[in-house]
């Protein structure tokens, strides 16, 4: 089954972007996106693996319910991407399984 994002950004009057980093790769995304939207926009098809089975997950509900868009943001693990607006210089990392507490 293809899992290429069908997300298409709407045409904007203002083409302002912020530069953020996804797994250290610089990307420029529209200023009013949230992190989950930015991941889809950049073609990320899996942003985390689950703690129990290790299967891959990507943003799904986009409204704070499914917890499938958990990512590490600026060093803080398990943040809900869809509930976090993008910001200049933000560093987003893929979550591999459960976070460590140590």
């Amino acid at each position, binding site marked *: 089954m293809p899992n290429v994002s069908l997300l298409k950004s709407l045409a904007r009057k203002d083409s302002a972007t912020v530069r953020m980093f996804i797994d250290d790769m610089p990307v420029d995304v529209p200023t009013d996106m949230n992190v989950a939207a930015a991941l889809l926009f950049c073609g990320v098809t899996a942003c985390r693996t689950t*703690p*129990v089975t290790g299967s891959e997950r990507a943003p799904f509900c986009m409204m704070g319910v499914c917890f499938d868009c958990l990512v590490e943001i600026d060093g803080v693990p*398990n943040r809900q991407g869809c509930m976090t607006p993008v910001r200049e210089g933000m560093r987003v990392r893929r979550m591999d*399984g*459960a*976070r*460590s*507490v*140590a």
Partner: protein
Amino acid sequence: MQKTYDIAVIGGGLVGMAIAYGLAKRGQRVVVCDGEDNSLRAARGNFGLVWVQGKGGTCTDYARWSLHSANTWQGMADELFARTGVDVGFQRPGGFNIAQTAEELAVKVQSMRQLKEAEPALVYEVLDHDALAERLPAIGPDVFGAIYSPNDGHVSPLYTLRALFAAFEQVGGEYAPNQRVTDIRQLGSGAFRVSMGDTSFEAGRVVLAAGLGNRDLAPMVGLSAPVKPLRGQIVVTERVKPFLDYPTIYVRQTVEGSVMLGDSAEDVGFNDGVTPDVLADIARRGIAPFPILKNVRVVRAWGALRVMTGDGLPIYEASESCPGAFLATCHSGVTLAAAHCETIAPWILGAERPALLDHFYAKRFAA
């Protein structure tokens, strides 16, 4: 034609389902009458410990009863898995009761010593900080010590309930949800007519396992269930990598990685909400022994109402005025589930009442 059953179990929580499954797998035609979704449900709000240590300080038979169930648990978990494919996650690596201070540990040791004198099977070890840190590396530097008992374990209470439902239906049990029982009366034939508003059915025996609902149901069949709600609040964190291989009384990590923090005991009537002050206290009492939890995010918190008698002990009773009517109520529906399935169900079917249950008649409250 009106349906009839061998046995009607009133209440589809952990107590009711463990007994109902125990009855149905022994060949009885059983119906479970369960309340509405918004009924008070201790079974969906609890912590998931299968716990023995420290129980029965005022009644050693309660410790023995809890131990009997804990010893029976693995067998029930295996049987539920074989029947339903649901792994309830039962683990019994032993459990820790952590003491922050020397005084706290001394009190716990005193209680455990007395229990073991009365019942040698209630084994335990006393650990100082260093011995504790060897087994629980995440323990904080300020913790004084702990008591460890190999008798303790934990389980997923929600999977347990789900597995009991599946196993019950598999052995032919019938589940009647959204049925708030309004009346129970014994007919001339000896059978019971159970009414839910306008509808009713007959059953040869009835088992009251409706938790706090038993208070109103018991007098209908000549029994008494003086139970009151006692609220507990629980905090659950995001999933984190395994760091805690054993359950403790206030903190345990589930197999999925969530950390559960509890518990509180509040006398607030039928209010099952949460309050910031109690949640903050629970968080403090979880972080004190395990400082690494201080940056872990909380994802959910809830309150649930325990089913408590005046002395905290269960009631198991057969009605004298309405033979065939039984009452079972306790606040440890998880720990005691295996005993309910393998010992209480046979008693309801006519086996001799175990002497171990002699203390658990409701008449102890009559004075």
